[in-house]
């Protein structure tokens, strides 16, 4: 009992900080989404209107939302397709190699995210190295338009988020009990069958954590489409930013954020419902 009181006291700074800067801040966000903008600077008129949400239901905005979800979906799918085998091979490598590979995966992510995306921008430019190489190999006569395309945005997204798939898959494959696979093989299962019936279900929690960890941030990233996609395509992230900076319409931006928040919480809820443990999501 005494221990609990001391615990509560030690936890007080974190409890207060969380209550104010997460709890109250998100409640204000919710309230703000029902307010009306006054049109002067960032001014808002408190009240209760569903107008912001009604505007969000217009086809143009629904399309932005749909496109963002689709981009996040493709990003996650490619991350899974490349990251799962990567994490798997990494965990199956020799003991010495595992540490080295882990370091190799993490180090690029210690440089600023913007800089790495900017590196891709240089690579993909009309007169950049990739086009030079393609022309030197006579695969194309004139430079291809690689930058400011959907493909470039997708590449940037996958590049930025793939470690969040690799690491949980790696840890789930590494802690797997391989004698189970050996048992399946002894009972006559082929390597493919053993993989599908034993390895895959056992490593699914890692892959599922990876899916959540890539999909959720993918919905809100706006700087990648900004830098690699040109200003041609609008995603939810850009929408929130523009509503805030250009239109200065805080209530509408709040409504968009609330929809994103509810979507995220639903995904996290689903993840738990299907047996996901938030422990699998802590990478470090």
């Amino acid at each position, binding site marked *: 009992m005494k221990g609990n009181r001391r615990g*509560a006291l030690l936890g007080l700074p974190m409890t207060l900080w969380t209550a104010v800067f*997460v709890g109250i*801040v998100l409640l204000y966000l919710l309230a703000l989404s029902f307010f009306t903008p006054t049109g002067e600077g960032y001014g808002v008129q408190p009240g209760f209107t569903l107008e912001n949400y009604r505007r969000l239901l217009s086809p143009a905005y629904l399309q932005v939302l749909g496109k963002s979800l689709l981009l996040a979906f493709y990003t996650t799918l490619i991350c899974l397709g490349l990251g799962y085998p990567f994490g798997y091979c990494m965990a199956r490598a020799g003991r010495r190699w595992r540490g080295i590979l882990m370091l190799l995966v993490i180090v690029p992510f210690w*440089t600023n*995210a913007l800089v790495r995306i900017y590196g891709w921008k240089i690579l993909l430019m009309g007169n950049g190295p990739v086009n030079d190489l393609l022309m030197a190999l006579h695969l194309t006569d004139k430079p291809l338009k690689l930058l400011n395309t959907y493909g470039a945005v997708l590449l940037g997204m996958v590049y930025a988020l793939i470690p969040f798939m690799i690491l949980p898959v790696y840890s789930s494959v590494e802690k797997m009990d391989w004698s189970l696979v050996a048992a399946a093989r002894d009972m006559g299962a082929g390597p493919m069958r053993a993989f599908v019936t034993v390895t895959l279900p056992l490593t699914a929690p890692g892959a599922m954590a990876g899916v959540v960890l890539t999909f959720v941030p993918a919905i*809100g990233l706006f700087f990648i489409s900004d830098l690699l996609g040109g200003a041609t395509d609008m995603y939810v992230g850009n929408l929130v930013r523009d509503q805030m900076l250009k239109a200065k319409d*805080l209530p509408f931006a709040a409504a968009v954020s609330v929809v994103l928040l509810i979507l*995220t919480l639903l995904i996290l809820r689903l993840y738990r419902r299907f047996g996901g443990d938030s422990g699998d999501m802590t990478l470090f």
Partner: protein
Amino acid sequence: MRRKRVGSALFLAVMLVMLYLPVAVVVLYSFNANTSRFTFAFTGFSTQYYQGLLHDTKGLVSALMTSLELAAYSCGLSLVIGTLGALGLAGAQMRGKGAVETLSLLPVMIPEIILGFALMAVFTFAGVKNDMVKLVIAHVTFCVPYIYLVVKARLTGMDPSLNEAARDLGAGPVRAFFSVTLPLILPGVLSGTLLAFAMSLDDFVISFFVSDTTVTLPLKIYSSVKTGVSLQVNALCSVMLATVAIAVALSKLLSRKKEPGEMKNEE
């Protein structure tokens, strides 16, 4: 069997090349002699951008200093809040613990843009004008979860009988904490803080929303990448990358030397 190994090694190698390609390009172009703002064609070797960096002609170094200052404040505060939080909440069985934990982890679970925008809106409402205060509040909010998680993991792995033994031998609660618990969780506290520091230094989205005029390094890089880039950005990032690489190499060397001793302790 052998063919499978070669296949997986090849796959890992190709993926790693893709992972490092943009980083390599950034470093390579930092030595470019070309000064044109519109084409990046590599025309020759030069250290001009490093020299420019020394005189900070583009304000990049001062942006880095701002970022380091911000990261130091935020991590210092988060270190205390997160560690105390883990010590208080991890063992205790109390009402509301689950709610506090879920809520405190939200900042790193939801898309950054939501927290960034929500904080900006609240600061506007409350009339908070000081950029550094706003930035520190925002960064502490997303740094605490990292430290909390790492320290908590360390605490759950700890044998509680060690603390009890110290108490049985006559140590007061404070003494037991400083001579038993703290040394055991210290590696967790350090690695959590390091992680939080890296996250703070790298944060773009949340700072973008919260800051009015203060320019952190990621904000500076963003604006210079959007409007004609100076390759000084590349030079600065190469220097930072080299610093990180050397730090990692050193820490690996040090921990390798320590390993045999640790093994003995475990036996």
